[in-house]
C-alpha cells in the first residue's frame, strides 16, 4: 500500500487530471526531444564507428582526410581524386600489410551508391563488433555483370536473387539508367549490418571498367557502343580506384606504414587512421551537438516551468482542501511534501512518457532513417547517458516543485483552519 501522503497526492492530481495531463504531455514531448537528440547523437557516432571497425588505414589520393573517409566509407560528400592501380598493387605487396580492399565509387542505382570492389571485401571487411559480412542469400559476384545488394537496397526495392538491374552514372539524380545497355544480375543479398553497406550495390572492379569502356571523361563517347557480350575481349583490369581500405599484420606498424604511404614515390597518397578522422569530425560538429542539446534542455525547462505554473495556479482552489488536512493533523511540512510530491510525480510521469514516446517514434521512423541515412535506430533500454539526462530532468522537476510546495506551506500556515477564500 502507498504511503498516505503519496496516495493523497496521487488522488488529488487524478482529480485535476484534465488540467494536469496537458502539462504532463508538454513535459513528455520536451523529454522526448532531449532524449531524441541525445540518442541520435550517440547513434550517429556508433554508426560511424561500427562502419569501419576492422580497418587500420584508409588510403586515397592526397587531400582532406575527412573527405576521403566520409566519401569512401559513408558515401557522403564529394568524390576525391583517384589512386593508380599500380599503387594499390604496391600497397598490397608491402610486408606489413595483411590485406587490402580496393573500392571504386561514382555510379548509383536508383539513388543507392554502387561500390566496385573485389573478393577481399567479402573476406576482410568488418563492421560492428568486428563482424564479417554475411550473405543472407545467394553468392558473391563471379561474372562481370553480377551484383551483390545490401540488405536495405534489396528490401526497399523488393529485389530478389536473379533480378536484373541497370546502373546509372553518377549519383543518379537524373533518374536515367545510363548503363542500361549492360544490366546486372543479382547473385547475392547481404545480411543486414546497420551500416552504409546495407545501402550499397556491390559489383566487381572489372564490371566498373566494363560499363565505362565506351565512356570517357564522364560521358558516353559519341558513336561508340560496346555491347555487353564483347566486354570480355577488353582488358578489364582497373586503372584507378577511389580508395583502399587496408588491414595490417600488426597494429603496431600503423604509423610506419602510414608514413610510407604519405611519402609514396609514384603519386601523392594519403593514409588516414579512421579513428583519428572520426575524432576530427566529432570535434567539428561538437559545438553544433552541444547547441542542440542546450536548446532541448531549454525546452525541457519551459515544460517544467509550465508544470509548476499549473500546480501553482491550482493552489488557490485547494486552500480549503489544505485547511481540512491541517484540521485532521497534517503538519505544514506534510503540506509542503504533498505539493512537492505532486510536482515530482508529474515530472516522473512526463519523463517516462517521453521515453515511451521516443521508443514509439524510433520504431516508426527506424525504416525511414535506415533508408535515408543508413543509421539503425535502436529501441532498446535507455543508455547510461540517457538515464543521466532523465535523472537530471527529474531532479530539476523536484527542485522546481519545491516552489508550489513552499507556497502551499506558507498559505496553510497563514490560513490555519479558516482559509480566506
Amino acid at each position, binding site marked *: 500500500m502507498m504511503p498516505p501522503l503519496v496516495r*493523497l497526492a496521487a488522488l488529488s492530481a*487524478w482529480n485535476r487530471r484534465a488540467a494536469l495531463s496537458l502539462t504532463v504531455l508538454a513535459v513528455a514531448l520536451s523529454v522526448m526531444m532531449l532524449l531524441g537528440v541525445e540518442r541520435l547523437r550517440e547513434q550517429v557516432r556508433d554508426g560511424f564507428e561500427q562502419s569501419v571497425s576492422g580497418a587500420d588505414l584508409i588510403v586515397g589520393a592526397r587531400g582532406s582526410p575527412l573527405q576521403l573517409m566520409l566519401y569512401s566509407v559513408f558515401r557522403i560528400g564529394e568524390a576525391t581524386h583517384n589512386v593508380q592501380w599500380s599503387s594499390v598493387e604496391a600497397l598490397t605487396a608491402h610486408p606489413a600489410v595483411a590485406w587490402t580492399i580496393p573500392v571504386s565509387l561514382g555510379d548509383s542505382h536508383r539513388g543507392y551508391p554502387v561500390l566496385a570492389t573485389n573478393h577481399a571485401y567479402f573476406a576482410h571487411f568488418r563492421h560492428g563488433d568486428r563482424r564479417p559480412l554475411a550473405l543472407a542469400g545467394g553468392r558473391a559476384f563471379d561474372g562481370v555483370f553480377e551484383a551483390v545488394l545490401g540488405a536495405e537496397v534489396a528490401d526497399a526495392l523488393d529485389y530478389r536473387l536473379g533480378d536484373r538491374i541497370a546502373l546509372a552514372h553518377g549519383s543518379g539524380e537524373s533518374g536515367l539508367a545510363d548503363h542500361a545497355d549492360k544490366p546486372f544480375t543479382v547473385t547475392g543479398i547481404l545480411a543486414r549490418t546497420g551500416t552504409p553497406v546495407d545501402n550499397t550495390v556491390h559489383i566487381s572492379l572489372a564490371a566498373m571498367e566494363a560499363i565505362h569502356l565506351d565512356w570517357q571523361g564522364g560521358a558516353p563517347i559519341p558513336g561508340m557502343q560496346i555491347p555487353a557480350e564483347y566486354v570480355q575481349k577488353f582488358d578489364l583490369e582497373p586503372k584507378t580506384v577511389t580508395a583502399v581500405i587496408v588491414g595490417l599484420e600488426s597494429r603496431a606498424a600503423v604509423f610506419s606504414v602510414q608514413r610510407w604511404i604519405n611519402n609514396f614515390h609514384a603519386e601523392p597518397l594519403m593514409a588516414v587512421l579512421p579513428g583519428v578522422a572520426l575524432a576530427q569530425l566529432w570535434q567539428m560538429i561538437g559545438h553544433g551537438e552541444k547547441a542542440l542539446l542546450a536548446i532541448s534542455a531549454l525546452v525541457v525547462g519551459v515544460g517544467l516551468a509550465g508544470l509548476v505554473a499549473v500546480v501553482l495556479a491550482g493552489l488557490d482552489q485547494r486552500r480549503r482542501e489544505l485547511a481540512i488536512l491541517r484540521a*485532521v*493533523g497534517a503538519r505544514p511540512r506534510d503540506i509542503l511534501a504533498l505539493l512537492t510530491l505532486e510536482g515530482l510525480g508529474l515530472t516522473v510521469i512526463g519523463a517516462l512518457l517521453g521515453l515511451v514516446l521516443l521508443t514509439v517514434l524510433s520504431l516508426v521512423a527506424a525504416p525511414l532513417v535506415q533508408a535515408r541515412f543508413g543509421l539503425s535506430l535502436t529501441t532498446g533500454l535507455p543508455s547510461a547517458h540517457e538515464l543521466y539526462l532523465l535523472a537530471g530532468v527529474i531532479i530539476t522537476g523536484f527542485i522546481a516543485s519545491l516552489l508550489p510546495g513552499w507556497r502551499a506551506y506558507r498559505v496553510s500556515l497563514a490560513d490555519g*483552519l*479558516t482559509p480566506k477564500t
Partner: protein
Amino acid sequence: MPAPVVSVAGLRFDWGGTPCLDIAAFELAQNEQVFLYGPSGSGKSTLLNLLAGVLVPRAGELVVLGAALPRLAGAARDRFRADHLGLIFQQFNLIPYLSVLDNVLLPCHFSARRRERAGDAKQTAARLLVHLDLDPALWTRRADALSVGQQQRVAAARALIGAPELIVADEPTSALDADRQDAFLDLLTRECAASGAALVFVSHDRRLAARFARTLALPDINRAGVAP
C-alpha cells in the same frame, strides 16, 4: 475532581495590533457539552484556531488536556491536534476526491494514537457511519457526491474516529434545514457522550442553545468584544 479538558485564563489575542480576544477565564469539564454563542465577528474562528493550536495567544494560559499549548512547538501542536481534537466545520468539511470511508479514516493517517484507539480503523469507521445513519451504499462514493447533510454526518464520524477527548464544531448545522439540524444535533451529542468526548459547539443561532445543558455567549466572556 478530574482535571478540565480546556482551561483558559487571561487569554489575549490580537490581529495586527487590534485586540480580538480577551478572555479572563473559561473551563470545560470532561464529558461536558457547551453551546458557545457568538454573532459573526465575535472572535469565534480565532478561538477555534487557538483551541486547535493553529494560532498561539499573545498572552495568558491555554491548557488543553493538561498541555499548555502556547508553550509547545508548532510541530508538537500539530501532533496534539491530530491526537486529541476532532474538528467539524460549517461546510466543505471533506476532501472532495476521497471516498466517504477514506475521509473518515484521514485522522488515523496523521495520528498514531488515534489509529491505535480506533482498533480496526475500517470497522470503527463503519460503526460510526452506521451510528450516524449513513447508508453503506454511500461509503465508497466520492465525498462530493453526497448531500450537505450527509457530508456533515461524515465530518462528524471523522471527528469522532479514534475517540479524541475534545470535539470542536464550528456552525456545523448552519447549512442544514431545521429538521436536519435537529437530527444532526441529536446524533452528534449522542455520539460525543458515547465516546466520552467533551464538545464545544459554536454557533450564531441561539435557537439551538436549548438543547445544551450549558450555554455561553462569547461576547459575555470576551472583553475585547470586537474582531475583524
